[in-house]
């Protein structure tokens, strides 16, 4: 309950902050539409030269684009602004005030900045997913849709956990302010089904920087390609990684000693 109250307070604060930059918001939305246009054009170019990409049709790639945009929004609306603030607070010691608050510091650090206008991107992503699923010729059962939603959420949790670990490393290595660049660098790999990548790249985007776990895997669930044991494994992995991440965060906090010492 307290968490929800805090979230809504953060949200209101961020709305006010972004209202100061109205013209910027309009320009950003236009640019965002431009990139959507480019993404659809590039899919059109691919599918004017082939019928399937690694066995996936146009509809499925549009749905994948939607899921990719969900992860992308997580990255731009939450991960980047909060990381920037966090890195700054480690360097100048303002992290002290965050720790003094009577709330879970991990929650505070990861949710205090939200790029509010990006919410419309979420709507766009859902539209893409719905349109894509309807375009695809394969029939989908309600169970497949359910596992798809479930695995999309577990994928996000895994990426969120990885993010926590990456920024927690800053407690040990203060100068490590490139902490999320590696996530961003491999993000583009989520645009296409990981099954078309060479094995070494597939291993990187599945096990090391698990972008594909949040993009390709949910789509595979939608296509009914995953077995029950696999689905359960992903759910288990997301729970374990979240647990591990919060342990590492706490260990990192113990390491933190302010900026002056």
């Amino acid at each position, binding site marked *: 309950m307290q968490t929800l109250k805090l979230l809504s307070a953060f949200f209101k604060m961020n709305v006010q902050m972004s209202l100061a930059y109205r*013209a*910027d918001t309009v*320009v*950003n939305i236009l*640019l965002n539409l*431009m*990139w959507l246009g*480019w993404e659809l054009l*590039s899919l059109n*170019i*691919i599918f*004017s*030269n*082939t019928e*399937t*990409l*690694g066995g996936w049709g146009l509809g499925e790639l549009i749905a994948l684009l939607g899921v990719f945009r969900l992860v992308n929004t997580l990255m731009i609306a939450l991960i980047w602004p909060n990381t920037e603030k966090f890195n700054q607070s480690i360097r100048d010691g303002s992290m002290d005030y965050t720790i003094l608050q009577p709330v879970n510091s991990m929650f505070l650090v990861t949710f205090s900045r939200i790029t509010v206008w990006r919410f419309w991107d979420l709507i766009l992503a859902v539209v893409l997913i719905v349109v894509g699923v309807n375009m695809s010729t394969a029939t989908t059962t309600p169970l497949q849709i359910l596992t798809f939603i479930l695995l999309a959420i577990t994928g996000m949790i895994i990426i969120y956990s990885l993010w926590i670990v990456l920024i927690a490393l800053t407690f040990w290595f203060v100068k490590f302010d*490139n902490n999320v*660049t*590696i996530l*961003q*660098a*491999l993000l*583009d*790999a989520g*645009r*296409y089904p990981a099954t*078309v*990548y*060479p094995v*070494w*790249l597939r291993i990187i985007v599945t096990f090391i920087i698990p972008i594909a776990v949040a993009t390709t895997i949910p789509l595979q669930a939608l296509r009914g390609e995953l077995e029950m044991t696999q689905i359960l494994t992903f759910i288990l992995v997301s729970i374990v990684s979240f647990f591990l991440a919060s342990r590492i965060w706490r260990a990192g906090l113990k390491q933190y000693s302010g900026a002056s010492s």
Partner: protein
Amino acid sequence: MFLIFKRLWQVNWAEQWQYRANLLMYLLYWLVSPIIYLAVWTSIAGVKGEVNGFTANDFVTYYMVLLICDQITSNIIIHTFAYKIQDGSLSGELVKPIHPMLTNALVNNIAFKMLTIMGLIPIWIILFFLFKPDFSGVTLSGVLLSIPAMVLGFVIGYLLSAAITSLAFWTTRVYSIHEFYFAIILLFSGQFVPLPLMPKVIQDIAQFLPFQLFMYYPIQLILGRLSAEQIIQGYIMAGVWLVISILFFNWVWREGVKRFSAVGA
């Protein structure tokens, strides 16, 4: 003049060397999409045998050469210069008797380029063994012909980016304008896919734009896939765009500096 450049080089090299860890991150960031496009198109060509005349190996060699060409012809001036106009720290450079964009910033860009290319070499060799491209189509004359094309591509690209960066004299939204410019490059340079696979309209327009000089044109020169007629046409367009970009940059810069002093920063 030579002495000035020598000293500028020493300063900028030392400055960039300091950030070598950042540089490696940048390199990683920028390597990923060409490798993904490579994977996507070789997968399609692998299934169908060929796409519009391009075999899987044609795609591998195209993107492998693209990694090098892009690194040579691209620049980062928007990131290293626009903020100087916005926060006024350009004043200090304006009183020096040398052009800030065509000396210091240019040398800084080249130093950055040298370091990223040094970082790229080992990665490129690893990729070479992973993808095993067949470069038998490459000829010495093709490589030699591509060198002036890449230099022209870099100069034109640098002048155009410098002109866009100079728009910061007028607007704070210069990064948004640059993002738009970036999308235009993506569309017309052959970065996403070799131009013959793009829609006909885009191909037709691309012929008359400078952006194919950044990637498609030098890549195809190296791979020896252009006819004599196409080579001549490409160089004529490069000459035309060199003149246009020089005039355009000079005009934007001159008007911009006038405004800058009028604000009195």
